[in-house]
């Protein structure tokens, strides 16, 4: 039984701002389903007593001193931007959302 529905693929695509076709929705649902099932196998060996791993390196508290370091100039910062204006990044209008 597929665990990933068409609706979920469409929802994820919207969150990721991806335009997917009808065909792709079906194809990705099936592929994501396979991925989820593959990952689910971990559950067969990892029991409750094994905590999930988020970091493979056994390190904590890696900090930086609070010292200013040189960054980019304004020109360098916007150099690779598709569009810039007055030293700022220019982006298409933002509709229906507000931070």
């Amino acid at each position: 039984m597929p665990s990933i529905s068409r609706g979920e693929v469409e929802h994820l695509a919207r969150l990721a701002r991806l335009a997917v076709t009808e065909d792709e929705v079906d194809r990705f649902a099936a592929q994501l389903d396979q991925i989820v099932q593959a990952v689910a196998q971990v559950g067969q060996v990892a029991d409750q007593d094994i905590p999930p791993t988020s970091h493979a390196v056994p390190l904590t508290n890696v900090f930086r001193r609070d010292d200013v370091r040189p960054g980019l100039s304004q020109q360098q910062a916007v150099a690779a931007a598709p569009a810039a204006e007055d030293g700022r990044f220019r982006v298409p209008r933002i509709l229906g959302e507000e931070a």
Partner: protein
Amino acid sequence: MTTTVALMDYADVIARFDPVLGLEVHVELSTNTKMFCGCPTVFGGEPNTQVCPTCLGLPGSLPVVNEIAVESAIRIGLALNCEIAEWCRFARKNYFYPDMPKNFQTSQYDEPIAFDGWLDVTLDDGEVVRVQVERAHMEEDTGKSLHVGGATGRIHGADYSLLDYNRAGVPLIEIVTKPITGTGERAPEVARAYVATLRDLLKALDVSDVRMDQGSLRCDANVSLMEKDAPEFGTRTETKNVNSLRSVERAVRYEMTRQAALLADGGSILQETRHFEEASGTTRGGRRKETSEDYRYFPEPDLVPIAPSRDWVERLRTTLPEMPAARRKRIQEEWSLTDLELRDLVNAGAVDLVAATVDAGASAAEARSWWVSYLSQQANNRSVELGELPITAGQVARVIALVADGSLTNKLAREVVDGVLAGEGEPDEVVDRRGLKVVSDDSALYAAVDEALAAQPDVAEKIRDGKVAAAGAIVGAVMKATKGQADAKRVRELILERCGG
């Protein structure tokens, strides 16, 4: 396009509903550098001049945590009576918005560095409300957008937007309360007092410049209403863009009256982010809240966990300053102030200034009198905060000392203060340049006294007859003749002496 919003009378809201508040305060830390890179955090730079590959989210860049930001987070947590996590991680909060160059915000999710605390908030009439703090976590600020085109200059109708990422990555601590219930009609006041108290606390900790007008302290107000004996909370809205203490109070009050009218009319509240309009004191609908799941939080792989040792936490605890509330209590006792006097002092924003003046050698009573009356008037006249007056506590203490040793009268002292405020230098320099020293040379005073007595022989006669009260008129004449630079007490002594006293 404006539609009329139905509002319920505030008294009716309170009669029928109980408000529930949840306050989220974001504070920008005043570290030298950003949360995850070495870019400076100074406010007001030219656009995109305080950026680097890390805070621009360029491929291949890696974040490294600012140690001072973590220390500040722990100190804030301790000051808020929180537990400090033994181990916690950063998480990615994924959403698309152009003010976030990485397309995710590095934040903390279910493992905040500080949690389960409280803050006591004193209302104007002295009532204390304990606000439970859910958590304080570390994250980073976003960039700033400038919306171009459209009629209003706002996002709606804009043709395009321009982004400045100088602020992107500046360390933020988000402090979240647990639901605040049971405050009834005082809910808006509690919200305001909480933010004000938190602001004072953060200022005392010296972790942020807490300027609401510059956005270094921001409050999002969650408000919901529940019918009087409803079993659970109602649907809440989250109002953003609340940029002053007054706005916090207004925004909460407005949302209460708006939601009440909707609910009373059989409507339901839309769970959404609303935008506070400063000019009208109203809120307008914004974006629908995405659910927490939609943010697809996951542990940040580029940053290792933070595990503050208990040694470190205890060491930081020793760096906590005296908390504002405790300090006020101590000051009230030390300076023998009534509740009212203390409140005046606090409302005038004069506590620190008076304390500094006392530290500089002045008596508490004199220091308080100067700051709360004469200097407060001067600040009012100039429409600035008391602390913005161009005079230091040390200078005020010097003026007080000059009065105490008889070099200045109170009237002359005010002139000296005026001179300092006018940029004429230190108090002693003003005294010299304006020639304000009290005339203490008795020979000069004798001459003035003799002259005044000669000019008013009838008064002189009365004094000689033992009507000592009549001396006032002569004192006045001498003070006038010396342009107020004589010590009135000494003048009086000389008059009585001359009249055979």
